[in-house]
């Protein structure tokens, strides 16, 4: 069994409530920080832990925190990103629903470290029942002296508020989130200035993912050095993976970042393999934005090394033969699935979610969806594949925020690895309506040699 730091108490009945959480060692890390450590000492532990942002980009959290500007007399803000809208991702929801105090405790420690006296949790609007759970946890924490004025006699004040979004993936992007929190459309801002200098209401602001902020609690409990011993290289600690698609046991798993992708998919401890004796066709291991990998590149890298569930190993080979950890939204496709259809649903998603500010993204996402729809429904032309390739290349890197890249990458990877399946849809339009292409040569790598 892998070590659990975030979900270690998830099985305890009533852990959602203050008394149970507190009775099982909860708020010990907050007490340790506020009573016995300076903000800089806490920052030091977080730096030592090697913790990297769990929202998708994997940026070192300690470094991010050290960038926050500290002009005299200007308030600073911590914003918790609970927008969780990347397809395949549902881990933050699990934490907030079942162990809300772990997040609240993380917010207290993190706000203390940053010198922020107000913290907002920005949660996607569709998670409509979770704000009540969080607000109850906040109220109980406050009643017990963990929030409000002069917490534990430390002289530190903190209030936490929950803000609901209203249906917009783009509001997960940190500057769009800030705009939304200011009561505006979620149009990303041009950076610089970065939020750490001018964020919410032009004040220094740190935006971090739910899981990142919750991870600060075990880091203080066991110490940054101890945390950094878990995992491999720069992938330290544990990571929540939300697994879905064609697997026996979809759900949220906490892994130590030292297991292989193969173990994650096939072991009973995690996904439990693929239902109905089907074979694995492909996997998108980090949410819809990261490149899809065919089975033959998933378990072994192009160099023939075992692919591990770490930031580095998943990315091994770059976008040619690798993928990314992303948000940890792990999507598995079995041999019966259609890559064209799957790519189409993602293209539709990004078209729907583009904020419309930048023309390459606004126009390009709609165009890609239309072409994919044509190919999927048997009305495609061979030249459409090259056109798709061309469009995605012209979106990538040409937009204010990375939503454009996120829309381009899945299309690029699908064509790169499954071009013959796209071609088959065009050469066999009728057959493609009646059946799926199947596994083709993307066989289970345990049976077929990895191509050089």
């Amino acid at each position, binding site marked *: 069994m892998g070590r659990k730091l975030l979900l270690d108490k998830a099985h305890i009945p009533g852990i959602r409530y203050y008394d149970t959480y507190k009775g099982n060692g909860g708020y010990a890390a907050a007490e340790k920080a506020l009573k016995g450590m300076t903000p800089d000492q806490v920052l030091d532990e977080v730096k030592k832990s090697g913790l990297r942002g769990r929202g998708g980009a994997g940026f070192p959290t300690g470094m991010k925190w050290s960038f926050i500007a500290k002009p005299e007399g200007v308030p600073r803000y911590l914003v918790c990103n609970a927008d969780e809208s990347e397809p395949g991702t549902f881990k933050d929801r699990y934490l907030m629903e079942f162990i809300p105090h772990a997040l609240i405790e993380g917010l207290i420690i993190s706000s203390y470290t940053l010198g922020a006296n107000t913290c907002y949790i920005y949660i996607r609007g569709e998670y409509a029942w979770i704000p009540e759970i969080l607000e109850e946890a906040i109220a109980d924490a406050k009643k017990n002296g963990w929030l409000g004025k002069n917490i534990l006699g430390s002289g530190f004040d903190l209030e936490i508020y929950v803000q609901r979004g209203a249906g917009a993936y783009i509001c997960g992007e940190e500057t769009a989130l800030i705009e939304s929190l200011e009561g505006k459309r979620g149009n990303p801002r041009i950076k610089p200035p970065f939020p750490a200098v001018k964020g919410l209401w032009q004040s220094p602001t740190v935006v971090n993912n739910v899981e990142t902020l919750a991870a600060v609690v075990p880091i203080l409990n066991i110490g940054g050095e101890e945390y950094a011993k878990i995992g491999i290289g720069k992938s330290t600690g544990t990571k929540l993976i939300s697994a879905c698609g064609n697997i026996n046991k979809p759900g949220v798993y906490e892994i130590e970042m030292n297991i292989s992708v193969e173990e994650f998919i096939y072991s009973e401890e995690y996904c439990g393999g693929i239902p109905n004796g089907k074979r694995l066709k492909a996997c998108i291991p980090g949410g819809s934005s990261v490149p899809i990998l065919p089975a033959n590149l998933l378990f072994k890298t192009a160099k023939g090394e075992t692919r591990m569930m770490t930031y580095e190993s998943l990315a091994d080979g770059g976008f040619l033969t690798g993928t990314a950890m992303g948000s940890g939204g792990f999507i598995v496709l079995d041999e019966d699935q259609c890559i064209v259809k*799957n790519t189409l649903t993602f293209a539709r998603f990004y078209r729907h979610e583009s904020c419309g500010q930048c023309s390459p993204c606004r126009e390009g996402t709609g165009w890609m969806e239309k072409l994919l729809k044509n190919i999927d429904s048997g009305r495609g032309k061979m030249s459409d594949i090259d056109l798709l390739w061309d469009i995605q290349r012209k979106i990538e890197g040409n937009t204010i925020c990375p939503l454009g890249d996120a829309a381009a990458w899945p299309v690029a990877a699908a064509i790169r690895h499954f071009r013959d399946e796209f071609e088959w849809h065009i050469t066999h339009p009728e057959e493609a309506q009646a059946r799926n292409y199947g596994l083709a040569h993307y066989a289970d790598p345990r049976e077929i040699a990895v191509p050089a």
Partner: protein
Amino acid sequence: MVQFSEEKLNKVKEIIARYPDGKQKSALLPVLHLAQETFNGWLSSDTMDYVASLLQLEPIEVYEVATFYSMYNLKPVGKYVFEVCQTGPCMLRGSDDIIAYIKQTLGINVGETTADGLFTLKTVECLGACGYAPMMQVGKHYREHLTPAKVDEIIAELRAAQ
């Protein structure tokens, strides 16, 4: 006349108090949610103008926001809106069949409302329940692991609640 009750006006005040002085525009999204819940599940232009006056905003500032976010309904909807997720992970687990089944059972297309005004069918993009697919949102809650039998049960349950 569009008008919040005393209780809801207090809620609005409480929301505004979450932000620094003069930043009451930040209350816009939460207050629009409150307005939509209160006034039949959608935002008419009267409702939006009312929210603008409450928060001392120009009406256009409210329209801009209401038209950007997909959860705000700008047209009347049925009492229960079935928002079925159709993105990749749900599609892999059969969301297309669920959408087809609901269409057939209720006799409506996506975007339509049943004649009795009870049900509206919408397709939506990933709701963060991919591991419990196929799924839909109905009101505040998620209905997960859908099957045709489960859809029947939900429809019967909501009809019985009348």
